[in-house]
């Protein structure tokens, strides 16, 4: 099945599994080819692709990447991936294991460093915040807010009655809120 640029954009924003699968199938090959052609490994390609998809998702939520019917999200993901890979090649760690000349890479339509820097900072912050929760809380919040499962279904899966689960979810969100207020005292 094909998806229009708008459908891809909205699907990525809402975490639609079918759209994510589509973006994966249609874009990973291109990113992989680029990374492998420029001294990267399979693992590098996978990491760069996933990081780029996450950064694109973040920029959709930040409003830094807005829907442009002329530019599909897949093309944006590829621009991010190229920028990130170039950045990785420039890093000290990588230059010690690679003989590729960064200047020799043909980088067009690159993304602005601010655009990516903010997305990466936001993603790192969200990871730190969510990582402060225990496993059970993480599981409940992911099932409810991302997978959009009902409290009854989550209760059945985890072996809790829905009233208890509602209390647990509230407590998990309050822990997350407390951590966020600690990390951003100015707010």
């Amino acid at each position, binding site marked *: 099945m094909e998806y229009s640029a708008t459908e891809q954009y909205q699907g990525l924003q809402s*975490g639609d*599994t079918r759209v*994510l*699968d589509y973006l*994966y*199938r249609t874009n*990973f*090959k291109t990113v*992989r080819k680029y990374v492998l052609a420029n001294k990267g490994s*399979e693992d590098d390609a*996978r990491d760069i692709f*996933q990081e780029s*998809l*996450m950064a694109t*998702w*973040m920029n959709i*939520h930040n409003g830094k990447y807005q829907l442009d019917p002329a530019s599909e999200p897949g093309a944006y993901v590829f621009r991010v991936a190229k920028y990130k890979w170039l950045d990785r090649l420039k890093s000290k760690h990588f230059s010690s294991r690679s003989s590729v000349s960064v200047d020799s890479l043909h980088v067009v339509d690159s993304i602005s460093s601010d655009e990516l820097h903010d997305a990466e900072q936001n*993603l790192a912050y*969200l*990871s730190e*915040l*969510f990582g402060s929760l*225990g*496993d*059970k*809380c*993480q599981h409940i*919040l*992911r099932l*409810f*807010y*991302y*997978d959009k499962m009902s409290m009854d279904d989550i209760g059945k899966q985890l*072996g*809790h*009655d829905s*009233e*208890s689960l*509602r*209390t*647990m979810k*509230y*407590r*998990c*969100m*309050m822990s*997350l*809120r407390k951590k*966020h*207020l600690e990390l951003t005292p100015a*707010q």
Partner: protein
Amino acid sequence: MNSAEHLSPEEFARIEAYVLRTMSAESRDQFQAEMSRDSHLSAEVELFQTLLLASKKAGLERQLNELHSASSDKPVISMKFWIGIAAGLALLIAATFYLTRPGAEEQLFAAHVSVDPGLPVPMSATIEYDFYDAMVDYKSEDYDACLRKWNQLLQLDLTNDTLQYYIASAHFNKKEYPAAIEGYQSVLRSSDSDFRDRAEWYLVLSYLTTGKHDAIAEIADSTHSEYRERITQIRDQLKKQE
């Protein structure tokens, strides 16, 4: 809203319903009007959106990992390579199974064990708040936190069998079997406890995993609990294996 420090379950539920768009159009208009007057409320909505994003980011990350694992877009590798890998894996599995095969007790324990899910916790539990507060920790598998709270409550009522039972169960779930055994035995000393049958069952499981077969046989001979059949089954299987 007055305080940025506390958000009640009711306030939280309203904000969540607004952000997730599960409230009626009328309530939504009312909520938006309230937000325009109350800067704390709009700040809380913004804060909720950040927390929601943190949960969604974790979900997306997991989904991308699953997609990548499921992706068939793997590089082509020769059959010879796969045969070599398969042979190596078969050897590794055989060696691992031989070295780590579970003993009879371990197998029996695994076949019977399940975590006591705890008591239902109402959202607005004002009666016995401290007890239910710790029950949420128990259900969230934060056993250190619930033990700390329940042990404090136990100091005020040393013979409370509900506390004794759940303290023992928290130790059981932490695999601290000697402490669990001690707690379940305390429950059994109270002859009219509602937790008697369950305490006896978990005591048997604790004995099983610590190799106390004689104690299991003793219970099996005298029990009248709802777990009688399972307890005698464990005793008989242990006898067969001796």
